[in-house]
């Protein structure tokens, strides 16, 4: 059934590919974290036309499959003269897609800060920038951690989609090995286990971060 020696022999290849996977995950997540900010600001714009267009676009991107978006950019960009490597294309699509999710997370985090905090800042004549910087932002971070962490793990688990545009990550390598040696069981099982272990570890880290953030000043939470 399961050939353990075969599995052991292909493990190094998968481990190397895991590095690409992790790199893509972290890079696109960081870009997504940044991308979420202008999207949030546009959504909260005072001009109805800007905020409603942004909401519609963000909604559209969030509700449609990332794979189609990936194919779209991968096949469409050369038509407009833009030639990006598969990796870069993947990073771009993931960043924008998850950036949309992050803008929603930021919005929810902002709304989680009690109205009274804003009132107190007005009563103390605290300028707007200072209000955001020292009062609102620190309180926003706490609800954002679990939501953002959740999306990080989702992003990680969706990186195998990049295999379909020939990015050499874990799933691509295991499919390659499978086709090469006519045995899919061991490579895919290993690949799956690696994903499982890493995502559970990541979830644990996120829960730890959630536990430690602001532990000294919050109690009832």
């Amino acid at each position: 059934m399961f050939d353990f020696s075969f599995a052991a022999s292909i493990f190094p290849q998968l481990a190397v590919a895991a590095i690409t996977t992790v790199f893509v995950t972290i890079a696109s997540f960081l870009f997504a974290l940044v991308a979420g900010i202008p999207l949030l600001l546009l959504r909260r714009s005072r001009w109805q036309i800007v905020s409603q267009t942004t909401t519609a676009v963000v909604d559209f991107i969030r509700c449609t499959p990332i794979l189609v978006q990936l194919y779209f950019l991968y096949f469409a960009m050369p038509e407009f003269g833009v030639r990006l490597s598969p990796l870069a294309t993947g990073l771009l699509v993931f960043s924008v897609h998850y950036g949309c999710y992050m803008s929603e997370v930021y919005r929810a985090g902002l709304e989680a800060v009690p109205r009274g905090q804003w009132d107190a800042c007005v009563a103390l004549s605290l300028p707007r920038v200072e209000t955001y910087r020292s009062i609102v932002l620190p309180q926003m971070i706490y609800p954002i951690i679990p939501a953002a962490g959740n999306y990080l793990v989702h992003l990680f688990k969706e990186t195998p989609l990049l295999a379909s545009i020939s990015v050499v990550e874990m799933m691509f390598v295991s499919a390659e090995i499978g086709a090469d040696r006519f045995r899919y069981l061991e490579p895919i099982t290993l690949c799956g286990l690696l994903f499982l272990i890493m995502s559970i570890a990541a979830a644990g880290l996120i829960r730890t971060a959630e536990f430690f953030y602001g532990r000294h000043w919050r109690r009832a939470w």
Partner: protein
Amino acid sequence: MDVLIEARWLVLSGTIVTLRVFVLSFLFAAILALLLGLLRQSKHALVCGAATCWVEFFRGVSTVVQLFWLYFALPFFGISLSAETAAIIGLGLVHGAYGSEVVRGAMQSIGRDQWEAATALGYSRRQTLFGIIMPQALIAMLPPLGNSLVLLLKGTSIASIITVPELTFQSALVVNRTLAVVPIFICVLLIYYSIAIAATWIVRLLERKLGRWRPQTLNIR
């Protein structure tokens, strides 16, 4: 001209397959979610523990790898599934696990006081669970259901990777043949978006019709 007609047919058949996979995997996932959610409420540590392990496992796996494994690796154990069956089972397993969290959350949101009132009236544990808690919990599950449905819809596009002829798969085919990249993909994205909107609309309708007694429902625009 023939190319365009063929394209339209491919897209149409792809949409039908997508809808079929969507509905069938939703049914499978819903049954699993309810089952697992209930099992996790069990007083028996073994039952509760086993269900929890199952849920954590399927929440931690990558859907892409999962589908791949069911289609390419399972044959090595003598079980050969068709691509569509593998997709439905794989999506059902993963989204059933995610769904069980929604079920669990909804059941826990029905406060202790409902249990206490039922006990005071002489209801048995089973009577309370099925007669009092579940009806309320089922409606409490509706708001997050819309979100879960959209996630599942996006999941169906992953089936294209294991050669299920659903919409994403067909769209890549069409683009290859007609080379009309932008309009085809925009059309496909709009189809997905329409399905997503229709699904969330149905859920919201259900919410309004069934949740009339809930004060929260009245606040939803």
